[in-house]
């Protein structure tokens, strides 16, 4: 069975909510749609207070090459356009909409019928993806249309769909692979068409046998329907974190390593999440903008009947979802949006959900409390765990002494912030906390150095 070659850790996968079917959340009274839901320049709001908007209507326009459209996820009246705190407490422009019963914008197919016919016009597919604001839903929310249009001197050879879901607790990707199986495969075929590649691999970790079975069956079924589905295959991957990391997945599937500061396209790979594939299907085949996504509500302290997977629309406040679920459990001391390894602690539960929101995870005191830091004994566990082959113990020392040149020479800029070092350190040294800040500074210095040369 395949997996990536360097490092990695094996946290308990804790997929408690795996058995819970996706439930559709009712629309709340008010939604707050953020204009910064993607990597790159935030969208510019094009509605004003008092405007009436329909579900699926564009309310934010991209402000640069790397940016994306934002659509209204509900029908209603715009109450305000202004600053509101996101989940980290940072002020971001939000559009506040008071909701009414749904009235869909024109041209959107809201039916459930599966459309398997792949459009042959490449530009048509790209335009639909771009106009419907599709962004990568694996975590980074990078605009998908940019990723699907590599520069002309680079050639894509293989599309990799990321169904690894290697983060513990999260089950939203697993549920869509079970419930929206065929749509995901159609999405893969659409992206395959755009990239002009003959091969697409759907990588799924071994701890999700039902998903592997369902996806394989769907691929086989669709391959009988049309030639467009040939070359798609499902690959079982050994369970290891961070398998879902872009560079790790390429290593696992293609046995190729992306060089330092390189992009996947340098080795002929394009990686997309299965949730993105579903969004691409909706965007192209149904002309449905990306206004909803699946989110897991889970945690050890949550009773079994409240472990849920919800279909939410962007802009629902996290507090509304938590409230609908029955409130924040008393034992929870920390709420995380995303997985326990890479997710962000929520400091503001009133923050609105974004396109890339994937979970509300409740952690108890025992699970999250930091143990006292002690001295590094050079055991090398962090270096062994690092999937990028870095030496976190060294980077930590260099970062604390502000040795920028040495940090760069030791490739701190290649850190993917997966947290394996921190997870494996027996001395409880906050390796990632220190390294992350140093990485940011080094990358800024590198950019500053290359900029004036242009």
């Amino acid at each position, binding site marked *: 069975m395949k997996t990536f070659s360097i490092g990695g850790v094996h946290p308990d996968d804790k997929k408690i909510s795996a058995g819970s079917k996706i439930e559709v959340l009712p629309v709340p009274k008010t939604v707050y749609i953020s204009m910064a839901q993607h990597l790159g320049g935030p969208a510019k709001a094009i509605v004003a207070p008092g405007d009436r908007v329909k579900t699926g209507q564009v309310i934010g326009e991209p402000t640069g090459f790397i940016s994306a459209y934002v659509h209204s996820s509900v029908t209603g009246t715009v109450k305000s356009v202004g600053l509101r*705190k996101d989940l*980290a*407490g*940072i*002020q971001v422009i939000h559009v506040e909409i008071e909701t009414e019963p749904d009235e869909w914008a024109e041209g959107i197919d809201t039916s459930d019928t599966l459309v398997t016919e792949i459009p042959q016009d490449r530009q048509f597919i790209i335009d639909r993806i771009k106009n419907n604001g599709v962004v990568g839903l694996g975590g980074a929310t990078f605009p998908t249309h940019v990723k699907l249009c590599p520069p002309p001197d680079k050639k894509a050879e293989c599309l990799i769909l990321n169904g690894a879901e290697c983060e513990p607790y999260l089950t939203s990707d697993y549920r869509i692979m079970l419930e929206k199986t065929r749509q995901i495969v159609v999405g893969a075929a659409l992206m395959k068409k755009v990239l002009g590649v003959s091969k697409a691999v759907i990588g799924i970790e071994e701890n999700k046998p039902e998903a592997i079975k369902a996806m394989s069956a769907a691929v086989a079924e669709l391959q009988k329907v049309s030639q467009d589905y040939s070359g798609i295959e499902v690959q079982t991957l050994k369970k290891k974190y961070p398998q879902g990391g872009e560079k790790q997945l390429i290593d696992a599937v293609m046995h190729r390593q992306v060089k330092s500061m390189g992009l996947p396209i340098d080795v002929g790979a394009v990686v997309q999440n299965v949730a993105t594939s579903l969004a691409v299907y909706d965007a192209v085949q149904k002309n449905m903008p990306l206004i909803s996504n699946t989110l897991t509500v889970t945690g050890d302290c949550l009773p079994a009947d409240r472990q849920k997977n919800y279909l939410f629309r962007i802009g629902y406040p996290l507090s509304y979802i938590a409230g609908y679920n029955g409130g924040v459990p008393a034992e929870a*001391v920390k709420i995380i949006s995303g997985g326990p390894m890479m997710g*962000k*602690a929520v*400091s*503001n539960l009133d923050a609105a959900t974004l396109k890339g929101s994937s979970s509300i995870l409740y952690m108890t005191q025992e699970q*999250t*409390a*930091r143990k006292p830091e002690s001295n590094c004994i050079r055991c090398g566990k962090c270096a062994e765990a690092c999937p990028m082959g870095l030496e976190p113990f060294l980077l930590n020392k260099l970062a604390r002494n502000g040795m920028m040149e040495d940090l760069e020479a030791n490739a701190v800029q290649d850190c993917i912030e997966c947290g394996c070092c921190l997870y494996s350190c027996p001395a409880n040294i*906050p390796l990632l*906390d*220190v390294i*992350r*800040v140093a990485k*940011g500074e080094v990358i800024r210095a590198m950019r500053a150095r290359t900029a004036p040369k242009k």
Partner: protein
Amino acid sequence: MTTTIIWTIAIITLLGVVLAVVLYLVAKKFKVEEDPRIDEVEKVMPGANCGGCGFAGCRAFAQSCVEAMNLDSNFCPVGGNDVMKKVAAVLGLEVKEKAPMVAVVRCNGTCANRPKTSEYDGYQSCKVKAALYSGDTGCFYGCLGCGDCVAACQFGAISMDPETGLPVVDEEKCTACGACVKACPKRIIELRNKGPKNRRVFVSCVNMEKGAVARKSCKAACIGCGKCEKACPFGAIKVEHNVAYIDFEKCRLCRKCVVECPTGAIHDVNFPTPAVKPAPKPAAPAQVATPAAPAPKPAETAAPAAEKPVAPVKGTEKEVEPEKKSEE
């Protein structure tokens, strides 16, 4: 046996002499001429090698002074005017006297003024905390309280006050090297004029949010109402981005702004008596405020606001608006 020893001694001695001659010649040939004044200047420097002057250390500073042959752009913040006079004497130059500076912490978000909205249990570093989120209080701009400035100070001049959760600058020890200014990710610490008899007036807030929002997250926030700007007879105060700033070059320490400020965000330190409003209110008992105790101070000035917390804020905001427009 003896001959071996004698020969060994003889050869080693000879070798030593030959190599010494070689070394002497090499040293003569490749001698680097260095201005002897660099050594002299270095001798009068404080030798802290703190980098506050912008150079790598005291010697680098000395070298730059000698090379430039003027002291216009070079200043040793640690040694101050005394050292600069000595340097000038060594080089036979003139030096303009600079007013002594001191690091000023521009945040009054004490635990009492600024309630916590979340609990931070991550790595205790302001830099790390600032990169993660807005901080554990409602104020995005305020002090994060992890003490990066304390760690940066080589002179032991900053310490955290456990009661307020804010750093306190020891005026005696502070050399205004600026290390803490660089260490603070929120840019709260500023080097300001030490002032006559160490008396200073400054706005102890950098919150750029609109008045109501700022006030909500911190009782002592500057709400950008502009009352101080109007009150200042010397035009030293400017309200920009919803926060007032006092230009210490223009400030004449009249303290009219201190009494005007509805939130007590403007602090006056080292004055023998508290600031008094011209007519209506009698002064509170005299008290010498040190920078360590700005907390009790604003209580007096903030008193009218504290009695009816909502109304005055609204009033002041209304007052601001026309002014803001004119600024735009």
